[in-house]
């Protein structure tokens, strides 16, 4: 009996009128946990009842504490008929189970009903008394911390990063049970919500057990997803990265520890007071693995990755043989693990050595219907109670799904190996389901991680060593990890433009965030590739085969589009690449989003050339040259727009960067030509060739057109899908997270691929345009972490869901205008009755824009490394042997494609202007205005792992919520838009309320993982499922911190020093 859960129901407010006669409500509350239920007294005739109940106490196992949600039901008492339910609140008590998080949950929760939405609020207090469990064979994993954040959370440091953890649980979906035919929609929805809540709890507990087994204490980058497989069931699966984290204590404790600040400033995260480290995304101090930890780790069966955060730049410099040796060492350590995967996208300094490129794998599966005799039997006997015990007849399900994923992961692992990498970072998994077909996808970035974490030796010596090394800043991770004489695929290599010592590829695709120390020229931008392919409607195997056949072509085209658009932007690398393939009844959709940047270490991308089919035709020629001119203009314009002006390049290039049309005759995409090219790469051959597009059919024409239709965001706007925007570092504190959903209906008449593509393209572009328009008051601003999700709910419907955050950044002018606005409103507000409204006070805290300051850019020293064109993507299908051939042929295609990318000019040393740390630090201090305390009750939400202008002081636990909303009066609720608008607003409200009740004031790493919308306008019905998650945190404004804390000024300075790494 290791836990006691205590619940107190305080009061309700804004309850709905349940008794028409009196216009009042006789409300009472049922509190349920597991199988125990308590009730409050009935509070007669009030819409604002004050129950002030006693403490309801539940004595439960901690296993149950982890699995079960606390269920609070508000009802209207009715003497003569059944009591009417007003609504429910589910509270996940997991955050109370680990010591560093919340200690009490207390606050107002919206009372939610799946049919009516939010109906009033209830004030609840929840506490847990935990007793230590000495049982070795325990099933619970209380105390393991979970983070959605895909980097080491601020205010923690990673002692050890153990590696990949995964788990899945399967159950019958209550919506598809026979009983669903006789129960009310409300009962069905509630059964589903409760089941998913239970399953998530169970899943988290199981993952926690695995982490404990690995001797970790936390899961970072925890990603949990639901697969609604319909009749075949409900899968809840999760992946994450097991870590051992240490909480950073107060900065004072650390300051004496650093020996010489001047030296450590750049190198050691330890010396950064956490107050400032927290501001930047990627700061994660490391090292100091204790001796005992080490021995423990080596004794467990799952090998763990201990990394001590040392610099790794040496790997590249020390030359080939040594590099190989190091790789071997690391490899051997990682080989023991089943999957050397990391769900992190940003890393502690020194962790990432080389990046190889994107690896991905897909697999098409047929979902089996459950023909379980037990199930049928129960139906016959109507022993319905047994139905609740799903696990009894689904027990073999998880194995099947596990096997499927294991297969995919194996493939990813081998792809990474082919790229000369031993690990995969930025790893994620997803599914797309339509009827009984399911596409499983996994992708990540092949990488070489710091090998020295395996060398023993004290932290001190590692640190010393690291400090002595003179690292090439910001290019190490670009260096190729594979042997240039034995490349996995043909690529054009040049010497690194930064250090000039190692080879780099001409383009780099990755799924991770831009390493914070990467040297970037200009700004980045969101790049999307969009694609639709029609597919014949088919059943079962035939359908799966058709999809499998289409997949490689889609991947190929998506890749081509990305490459073209990247070149059109004049950039040479993609970060945060996410390729989503969605399957529908009669089509497949592909959407790839990434953030393009110009990496100083990589060669300047060549232009795009257009080659005509019939060069002799005069008018045609004219047309082609017209197009060519347009493309060249666009590239030039983009370079200006994104401020891409790499130094010295112009001197290097003699003549036009793009060969004359006459000269360029058509390039043969032949293997032989390319192989020559690769081997003869030399610094002296600095001639840049262009990427050639051949207009040999209408499709190609479409491609060219679509290239040019993408409109750049209006001035003052930038967008990216990574955490931070390369090239912008002076964020102000104003943020606006939003979700936008659009559904279009395609006209079913003569749909062609082209028409589809155009529709889809327009949908996405229009959506972006709308966002820019809506957020125009925030200019200058950047849309960060733009996350598009595509689904095909019905035959002719395309649904796109976007979640992102708009963050303003500083331009002096902008700041002033906001200030005057605030002053104006202040004046107006102060004429109001202050006592009653309390506007002036709250107003200044809320809308006063905080001063500009540069987020402290963490440097992270990565070593030299090489990387290649993302390749090794492939799709597999089970049981379709012919597919393997197609697959390999497709890889050939990619190889061929690679040939058309010519090497650019070489020999450019990029000197990075570093901002003076001193001046920057001073600026920040000077510009800090005295700011009032945060308004009570405001909860910020952001998909980023940080809050600009603030320091996260505490993580309160994971938020993982699942809601269903249904209506049978769609028209009355304002149609589909009105219905969904209200629901999304309600979901936000419930997330905020839970965070506030935990004592937090923000959600970071917020993500809407699912938004499944179904409508039946004829029946006036609609249903929507939404699943969201994030980390509840407490943050403190930096301006307040500076006033409050007595940190020495040097501390401020240190933290902002590394900011100068990025050229602007």
């Amino acid at each position, binding site marked *: 009996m290791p836990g006691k859960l205590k619940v107190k129901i305080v009061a309700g407010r*804004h309850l709905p009128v349940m008794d028409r006669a009196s216009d009042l409500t006789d409300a009472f509350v049922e509190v349920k946990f597991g199988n125990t239920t308590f009730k409050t007294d009935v509070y007669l005739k009030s819409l604002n009842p004050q129950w002030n109940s006693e403490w309801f106490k539940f004595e439960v196992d901690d296993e149950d504490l982890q699995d079960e949600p606390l269920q609070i039901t508000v009802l209207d008492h009715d003497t003569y008929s059944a009591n009417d339910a007003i609504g429910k609140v589910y509270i996940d008590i997991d955050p109370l189970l680990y010591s560093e998080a919340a200690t009490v949950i207390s606050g107002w929760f*919206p009372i939610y009903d799946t049919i009516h939405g939010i109906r009033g609020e209830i004030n609840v207090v929840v506490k847990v008394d935990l007793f230590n469990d000495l049982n070795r064979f325990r099933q619970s994993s209380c105390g393991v911390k979970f983070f959605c954040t895909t980097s080491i959370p601020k205010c923690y440091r990673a002692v050890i990063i153990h590696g990949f953890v995964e788990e899945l649980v399967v159950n019958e979906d209550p919506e598809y049970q026979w009983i669903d035919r006789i129960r009310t929609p409300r009962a069905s929805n509630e059964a589903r919500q409760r089941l998913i809540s239970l399953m998530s709890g169970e899943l988290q507990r199981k993952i926690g057990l695995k982490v404990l087994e690995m001797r970790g204490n936390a899961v970072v980058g925890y990603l949990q997803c639901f697969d609604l497989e319909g009749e075949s069931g409900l899968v809840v699966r999760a992946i994450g990265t097991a870590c051992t984290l240490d909480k950073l204590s107060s900065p004072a404790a650390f300051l004496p520890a650093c020996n010489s600040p001047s030296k450590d400033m750049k190198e050691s995260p330890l010396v950064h007071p956490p107050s400032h480290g927290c501001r930047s995304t990627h700061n994660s101090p490391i090292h100091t693995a204790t001796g005992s930890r080490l021995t423990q780790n080596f004794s467990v069966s799952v090998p763990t990755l201990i990394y001590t955060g040392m610099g790794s730049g040496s790997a590249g410099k020390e030359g080939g043989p040594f590099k190989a040796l190091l790789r071997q060492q690391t490899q051997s350590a990682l080989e023991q693990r089943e999957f050397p995967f990391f769900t992190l996208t940003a890393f502690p300094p020194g962790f990432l050595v080389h990046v190889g490129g994107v690896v991905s794998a897909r697999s098409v599966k047929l979902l089996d219907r459950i023909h379980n005799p037990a199930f049928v039997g129960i139906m016959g006997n109507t022993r319905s109670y047994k139905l609740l015990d799903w696990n009894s007849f689904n027990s073999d399900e998880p194995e099947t799904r596990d096997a499927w994923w294991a297969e995919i992961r194996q493939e990813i692992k081998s792809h990474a190996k082919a790229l000369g990498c031993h690990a995969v970072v930025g790893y994620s998994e997803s599914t797309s389901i339509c009827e009984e077909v399911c596409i499983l996808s996994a992708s990540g970035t092949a990488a070489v991680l710091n090998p020295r974490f395996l060398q023993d030796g004290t932290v001190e010596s590692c640190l010393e060593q690291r400090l002595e090394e003179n690292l090439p800043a910001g290019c190490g991770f670009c260096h190729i990890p594979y042997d240039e004489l034995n490349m996995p695929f043909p690529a054009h290599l040049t010497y690194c433009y930064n250090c000039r010592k190692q080879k780099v590829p001409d383009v780099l695709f990755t799924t991770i965030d831009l390493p914070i120390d990467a040297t970037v020229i200009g700004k980045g931008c969101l790049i999307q590739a969009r694609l639709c392919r029609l597919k014949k409607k088919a059943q079962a195997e035939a359908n799966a085969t058709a999809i499998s056949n289409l997949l490689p072509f889609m991947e190929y085209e998506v890749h081509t589009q990305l490459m073209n658009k990247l070149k059109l932007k004049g950039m040479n690398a993609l970060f945060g690449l996410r390729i989503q393939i969605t399957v529908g009844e009669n089509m497949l959709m592909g959407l790839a989003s990434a953030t393009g940047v110009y990496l100083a270490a990589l060669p300047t991308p060549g232009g795009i050339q257009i080659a005509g089919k019939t060069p002799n035709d005069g008018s045609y020629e004219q047309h082609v040259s017209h197009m060519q001119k347009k493309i060249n203009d666009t590239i030039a314009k983009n370079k200006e727009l994104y401020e891409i002006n790499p130094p010295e390049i112009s001197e290097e290039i003699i003549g036009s960067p793009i060969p004359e049309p006459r000269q360029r005759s058509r390039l043969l995409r032949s293997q032989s030509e390319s192989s020559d090219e690769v081997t003869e790469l030399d610094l002296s051959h600095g001639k840049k060739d262009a990427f050639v597009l051949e207009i040999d059919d209408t499709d190609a024409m479409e491609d060219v057109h679509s290239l040019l239709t993408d409109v750049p965001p209006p001035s003052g706007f930038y967008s990216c899908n990574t955490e931070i925007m390369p090239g912008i570092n002076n964020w102000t504190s104003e943020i*606006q997270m939003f979700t936008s959903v659009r559904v279009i209906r395609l006209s079913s008449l003569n749909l062609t691929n082209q028409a589809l593509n155009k529709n889809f393209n327009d949908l996405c572009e229009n959506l972006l345009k709308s966002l820019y*328009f809506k957020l125009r008051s925030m200019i200058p601003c950047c849309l960060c972490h733009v996350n598009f999700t595509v689904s095909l709910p019905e035959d002719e419907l395309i649904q796109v869901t976007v979640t992102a955050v708009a963050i303003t950044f500083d331009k002096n002018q902008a700041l002033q205008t906001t200030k005057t606005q605030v002053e104006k*409103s202040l004046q107006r507000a102060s004429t109001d009755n202050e006592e009653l409204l309390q506007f002036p006070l709250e107003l200044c805290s809320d*809308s006063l824009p905080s001063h500009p300051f540069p987020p402290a850019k963490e440097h992270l020293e990565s070593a030299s490394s090489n990387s290649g064109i993302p390749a090794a993507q492939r799709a597999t299908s089970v049981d379709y042997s012919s597919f393997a051939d197609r697959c390999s042929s497709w890889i050939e295609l990619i190889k061929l494609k690679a040939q058309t990318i010519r090497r650019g000019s070489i020999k450019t040393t990029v000197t990075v202007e570093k901002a003076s740390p001193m001046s920057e630090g001073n600026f920040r201090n000077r510009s800090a205005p005295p700011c009032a305390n945060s308004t009570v009750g405001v909860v910020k939400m952001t998909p980023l792992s940080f809050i600009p202008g603030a320091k996260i002081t505490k993580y309160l636990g994971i938020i993982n919520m699942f809601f269903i909303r249904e209506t049978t009066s769609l028209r009355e609720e304002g149609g589909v838009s009105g219905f969904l608008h209200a629901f*999304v607003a309600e979901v936000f*409200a419930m997330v905020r309320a839970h965070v506030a009740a935990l004592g937090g004031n923000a959600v970071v790493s917020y993500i809407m993982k699912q938004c499944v919308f179904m409508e039946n306008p004829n029946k006036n019905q609609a249903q929507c499922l939404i699943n969201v998650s994030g980390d509840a945190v407490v943050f403190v404004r930096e301006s307040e911190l500076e006033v409050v804390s007595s940190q020495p000024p040097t501390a401020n300075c240190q933290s902002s020093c590394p900011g100068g790494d990025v050229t602007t």
Partner: protein
Amino acid sequence: MTNELDIFVGNTTLIDEDVYRLWLDGYSVNDAVALRVRSGILEQTGATAAVLQSDTMDHYRTFHMLERLLHAPPKLLHQLIFQIPPSRQALLIERYYAFDEAFVREVLGKKLSKGTKKDLDDISTKTGITLKSCRRQFDNFKRVFKVVEEMRGSLVDNIQQHFLLSDRLARDYAAIVFFANNRFETGKKKLQYLSFGDFAFCAELMIQNWTLGAVGEAPTDPDSQVDDMDVDLDKEFLQDLKELKVLVADKDLLDLHKSLVCTALRGKLGVFSEMEANFKNLSRGLVNVAAKLTHNKDVRDLFVDLVEKFVEPCRSDHWPLNDVRLFLNQYSASVHSLDGFRHQGLWDRYMGTLRGCLLRLYHD
């Protein structure tokens, strides 16, 4: 390709002031889009009409959802669904309860009943304000009226507390409630030259001086104060006003009063002779208005009577405003020198307010 569904939801609810105004003014989405296009927003932002349509729809939906909360503004402050900065909340409330001058002149002093609501069609046609907007304004008046009508204590304070309005707007609403409760006639043709501001000014003076709350005797004996304090005129006071009749009924008193005023003002008034000639008529008018206030019907006609009996005669003789002021001051003050008159306190309570009102009402 048609947009089946199109929504945008921000963690902080986006409020576009321009769209809010259009919504409050009762324009349909399409009209609002057309007006926005005309404002040149497309050129400024480079957006398309489709974007504008979608944006307007979104805002309209948000406002529609907020409307329920705006009916009880404290709810807007405590609700959890929309995260709105306090300054924006204040703006939403203030604008929602703001009203058009033209509209309020039409319904001021009318019973806020279903009957009046039916006339909104005509008001809409007459004023050019959309019916939707008329309904909102009418419903606002009625809602505020219903909430504070039975309430004790300061009318302005009550309104502010329950509707979180600015001081200015709360005072206006107090006037509207006061007029609606006492059903003062404001619609007659001869009253058309008066603005809402004129009436509101008078209402404030009357609330301060002529209601039960004005006497300030409430705290001593709360049980006896069953009547509303600020909304209803002090019945006892109105009864007592009959006593003033002696000022015009008693010939000697009237002559004495006249001579006192004339002596004091001789040489100071541009219109002295007109004043001298008209003194008895004016005085009779003002005193008779007071004496008649015991009847509800006459209370309603207060403003008609004041304009007929005082404003119009003076205006026809082209009295400058300053002369009116001098006259009224002297007229009220001289009564203190009338030895035979015993109701000095009553006279001051009556004339103090009336003087203020008359000066405000005296314009073209």
